[in-house]
């Protein structure tokens, strides 16, 4: 299946470049030259790939690895953003106090609940939409492009519109609720309404994107499976349950993993949804996510050491989530 390009034999003749004219007699000088060229070519073949992949790894070292290590170092100190070189060693203090930090756990809990109420409906709706789009439709390209439109909108613009929609006094949603006879909902200051509102921004933005991924996977399912299922008398619904879903399993796992990571890093939507200007995620921190809490500690309160410890804790939590996902996916694959 795999081809190792570094050891693969060079094309014997021609290739993409014009072939060398065949020479019958080769002078020793010519032979040396050829040998040198060949050595150089082999070196080229051996080392060039590393040069080609190096930009990513150099950039990663500068903008990924170094910040990661520096953050780790900073998390062991008391450091203020106003004087980042002025560090006082405190050991694991920044980490141990996270255990007593009710704001951290509140943020962790909010991240979890917002993650669930945004990811689950989002993926279910995406699946439904993909299934509908998979039928023969007139103007299907149009619908697919429209599905991707929310995703192409910037979070800032989208969130500002949602803030207006969810406004307590002049918002369109409360106006509509009022028309049907419900009481006004204070979307920004009550816990569940505010979390639902934030989730709705996430759902709006990502449903179409996931639907397109599902659609691509559905179209890769061989048609003869459906034909034989139809011959066996399976209805559309039965076909969906017994053919489409099992075939989509790897794709579903992929979207779950990506959405989980996205949800655990949720930041822009709750930041911009806040009626106050700060990063406290509402007056009572009712929709403050971990990302937002990290930002508040680091950039508003300027406590670089604490923020670094939070960042590393989030990193560790993500690794745990990743391992859990991996285990589940292996179990699923083994059982199939």
């Amino acid at each position, binding site marked *: 299946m795999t081809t190792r390009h570094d050891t693969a034999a060079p094309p014997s003749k021609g290739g993409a470049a014009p072939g060398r004219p065949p020479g019958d007699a080769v002078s020793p000088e010519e032979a040396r030259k050829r040998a040198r060229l060949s050595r150089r070519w082999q070196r080229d073949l051996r080392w060039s790939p590393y040069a080609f992949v190096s930009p990513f790894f150099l950039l990663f070292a500068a903008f990924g690895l170094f910040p990661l290590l520096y953050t780790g170092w900073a998390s062991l100190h*008391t450091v*203020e*953003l*106003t*004087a*980042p*070189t002025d560090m006082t060693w405190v050991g694991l203090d920044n980490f141990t106090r996270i255990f007593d*930090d009710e*704001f951290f756990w509140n943020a962790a809990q909010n991240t979890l609940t917002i993650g669930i109420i945004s990811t689950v409906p989002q993926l279910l709706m995406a699946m439904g939409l993909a299934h509908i789009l998979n039928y023969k439709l007139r103007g299907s390209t149009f619908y697919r492009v429209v599905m991707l439109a929310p*995703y*192409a*909108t*910037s*979070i*800032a*613009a989208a969130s500002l519109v949602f*803030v*207006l929609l969810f*406004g*307590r*006094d*002049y918002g369109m949603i409360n106006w509509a609720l009022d028309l049907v006879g419900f009481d006004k909902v*204070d979307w920004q*200051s009550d816990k569940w309404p505010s979390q639902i509102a934030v989730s709705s921004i996430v759902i709006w933005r990502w449903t179409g*994107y996931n639907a397109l*991924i599902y659609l*691509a*996977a559905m179209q*890769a*399912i*061989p048609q003869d499976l459906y034909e034989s299922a139809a011959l066996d008398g399976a209805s559309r619904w039965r076909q969906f349950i017994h053919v489409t879903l099992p*075939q*989509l*399993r*790897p*794709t579903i796992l*992929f*979207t779950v993993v*990506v959405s989980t990571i996205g949800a655990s890093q949720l930041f*822009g939507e709750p930041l911009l949804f806040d*009626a*106050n*200007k*700060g990063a*406290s995620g509402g*007056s*009572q*921190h009712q929709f403050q996510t971990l990302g937002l809490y990290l930002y*508040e500690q680091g*950039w*508003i*309160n*300027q*406590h670089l*050491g*604490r923020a670094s410890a939070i960042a590393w804790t989030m990193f560790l939590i993500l690794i745990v989530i990743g391992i859990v996902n991996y285990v589940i996916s292996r179990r699923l694959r083994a059982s199939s």
Partner: protein
Amino acid sequence: MRAARIRPARKVVVMAAIASLGAGLLAGCADDGKDEDSSSSGDGGGKTTITLGLFGTMGFKEAGLYEEYEKLNPDINIEETVTERNENYYPALVNHLTTGSGLQDVQAIEVGNIAEVVETQADKFVDMSKVEGVKADSWVDWKWKQGVTKDGQAVGLGTDIGPMAICYRKDLFEKAGLPTDRDEVGALWAGDWKKFIEAGEKYKKGAGKDTYFMDSPGGLINAILGGEEEKFYNAAGEVVYKTNPAVKEAFDLTAEAAEKDLVQAQTQFQPAWEQTIANNLFATVACPPWMLGTIKGKSQPEAAGQWDVAAAPTSGNWGGSFLGVPKSGKNVEEAQKLVAWLTAPKQQAKLFAVQGSFPSATAAYELPEVKDAKNEMTGEAPIGELFAKAAESIPAQVIGPKDQIIQQGLTDNGVILVTQGKSPKEAWENATKTIDNNLEK
């Protein structure tokens, strides 16, 4: 068969992974757009270019001050970079100061941050008190002191200040059966914020159900605290916000106003608050001169002339900035001269005439641009005189490095909760817990 069935699915996963990575990159591009940086570029041609880093609308350019300075000094060219909001500007400024790079020749500092800058970053700035023509007594005394370190180094020179008065709607006051003359209105609550709340109760009885006496709990607590000499820090520099009776009193008074439905459940400068101005639904607002510009910007045209200005129960300060010259700038000498010129009384008066930024230099109060100033929103009210009078009685307030964080906690995590039905006690607990967590290093 089995392999054939799995392979397409795997391919899809790989494709999807690539798509999501690509999409992530795209999203990264699409998301910045929040900081609105605008810079004006001029012709450099052999001239010295002085750059200014500013936030908000400081109005030097709009008032034509750069042009004037360039005319007076033909070999100077001035460029400004403006960040819309100080919340975005200040963290970047701190970053640039601590790394000593990326700084402009002149950097503006907001009054809420000046204490922290003076305390932690003074060594990065030039001492402005040594610049020719700069005299400490040109400024209102407390304004000068805010920008000066213990050893007498002036980190920044004051631009404007925000002497607070109360702006009120004459039509709403009349409907509610309250006086409308600005002296009588001022007399209603002179000297005591409790009387202000009482006036609010009277207003509520007479006025319609939909209007509110004051715009927001944040505006009220800010106005009350603005008149205190010590609020969150004592003169020794210790955090005392929890034990200072003045803070608790201001909190309780604001909470009382919120419980009595006298203030709206709004946060200032947010869309809903702006919509309320446009709908003419609140009767008073704590009002430094620059607030008149905000009101004008958010009002319908027919609101012009409906407002008036009365003295606040106690006058405090709200807003104002400083201009400092970082040592690492390219044109330190020229930048100092420019800052001294921009903050001189004459230029401050011109800035007031165009932008409504109230001068911090006392000599400016005698100039006709300030003395005879009138304003469209407040009709014939002599705002120059009114605000100059308020400026005289502002106490020299102790400003601490984390004032902004404490104030924001008291407002956004405190009194606002009372408008949402929480008890004042719960609101105070929520606010102090948040603030303490934010202050802990």
